[in-house]
């Protein structure tokens, strides 16, 4: 009986020891939760940043395409504006220029 009691007392002591350890656990758990929470928030924040940046990249890509398209439009305008036909018409009509007549051209021959 005494022996049994003694064993029971040992168990009680072990349980107490365990429960005293358990009393420290809530802080650890809280810390763990906070770390985990930050970790999760970090992941979410990263995802959000990636999404935001992706949208921004998409917008910039669209902008780049628009600028490239504008460049092409300007190239076409340059091609039209620099065409010989247009310049000659302007020279003739606005500045009164003309090609020289055959009689107005002197040819110099090398001796």
């Amino acid at each position, binding site marked *: 009986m005494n022996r049994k009691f003694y064993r029971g007392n040992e168990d009680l002591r072990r349980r107490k020891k365990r429960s005293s350890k358990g009393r420290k656990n809530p802080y650890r758990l809280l810390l763990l939760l906070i770390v985990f929470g930050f970790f999760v928030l970090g992941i979410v924040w990263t995802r959000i940043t990636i999404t935001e940046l992706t949208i921004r990249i998409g917008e910039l890509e669209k902008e780049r395409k628009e600028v490239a398209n504008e460049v092409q439009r300007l190239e076409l305008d*340059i091609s039209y504006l620099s*065409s010989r036909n247009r310049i000659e018409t302007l020279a003739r009509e606005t500045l009164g220029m003309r*090609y020289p007549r055959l009689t107005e051209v002197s*040819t110099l021959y090398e001796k």
Partner: protein
Amino acid sequence: MKNDRYQLRIDKTQFPSPIRQRVVGWFCFLLWLLLLSRLAYIQVVRGSAYGTEAENQHRVKVPLFPERGKILDRNGRLLAGSLEVNSIYALPSQLRDKEKVAQKLAALGLGHSKKILSLLQRRKSFVWIRRDVEKEKILQVRELGFEGIGIAKDRRRYYPRGKLAGNLLGFVGEDEVGLEGVEYEYDDLLKGEMGWAILQRGARGGLYPFPEYPDMPPRPGKKIFLTIDADIQSICEENLEKYVERFHAKGGSILCLNPKTGELLAMANSPGYDPNRNGRGAPGVWRNRIITDLFEPGSTFKVVIDAAAVEKEVVELEERVDDGSGVIVVSGRKIRDPKKHGPYTFQQAVERSSNAASVRIAHRVGKRDIYLFARNFGFGTRTGINLPGEANGVLPLPEEWSSIRFANIALGHGLSGTVLQLSMAFGAIANDGVLLEPRILLAVGNADRPPEVEPRVVRRVISLETTKVMKILLSGVVERGTGRLASLPGLRIAGKTGTAQKVLESGGYSNDRLITSFVGFFPVENPILLIACIVDEPKGNPWGATVPAPLFREITQKIVHLSSYQPLLLARMK
């Protein structure tokens, strides 16, 4: 006693109510098993199907259209390019009040209301209302918010110089597929390759690229450089239009090339068309008549007869080849020159383009050799130009030549060729007797300036000595003969006029429908340019000497003023 109670409590903790807890335990276990099996079913059995379905909900695979390659002239000037434009379309079946929609769109300046209404009333599921619309108008259309009216990004081909080289460049269809001309011939190079991208669908339905998603960017079409010089092309077209109008001609063509390399510098056709314009006129106007249409060359073909005679040494320059009557009788039919003249030497006969003398000289050479020389000069076979629709030409076998047909062939009738074939034949004389392959494509790629090209030799046609004689003869044509109106002070030009009666559909030759031509090159000693001018059915005084010869001179005069050709010409003339 106290200790006993405590002992009992410990026992209770160690051994809780067995039956109830076992039931709850089993229940939880079964529930867990059920959930696990459901999870396994969803993840393992149906996993891939659900995965695909979920992906489809937020991932969209979109095709990426490549940019069509640009077409540039030999100096890198843009002749054709593509733009992304905003276009307005309609889905007629979704529109309720079509008249109201047409009026509202017309009020925004998108066209006449009746025209828009007729588009909306078409029995089609999709119609373009207007393509390449300004941003302001696009916003206004969006504000209207009509169901069945939408805005789409669209690519459109532009030809910034309008009609310039329209028949050569051709055009593309609605989906930017080449349908005619260079656009058709080089479609494989110009079109590029389609790409694709997987995009993320946003909460508002917008599509965004996502770095982790795979994509394949489209491969843009290649830039191609043509051998064409936009300035020379413009000069040729402008002057051709002027002459066609002045002589009330049916049309005309001008081909300009470098006889030393075979590069085509200009291909002008009248009537031409503007590939930017919808409809682009009748299909007959689209074709590049310089390579597709056959004509009997008339007196310009006499250079083949003359070259054969010189090469075969059957005639001397100063030898008298004509009795002065200007008439020769072949199989009872008289072939005569336009007017009587004194006896001609061979040189005079060529300079005055004597028909009677040409027939006599052809007889000296013989049928077989005339045929072989014509064949070697490129008549009756394609030149090999990389453009669609090139015609072979007709050069009958000598066995089929009757006496009268042989006489006709000596005058450039009874056979046919294209302007390009005729020009390449003259090119062989200008190029010291070597026939070259014509080239229209200078380079492919992204270089700013194309590299120099090596000429592609077809064959030697005549000897160097013969070309020297031919150059003397042809420069005489311009200095003293029928091509006097093509001459330009300070520049030695060699050339030949031609006037050919057109073949009637009913058979025989027309007396008033003529094709006049002049082909010339300069400077004679070391030619850099060859120009062939053809005017179809001019009215008034329709001769090769009076219509295409002065046209040649006007073009040459303007070309020699071009800064890019002046130093080259001066260097060659020294």
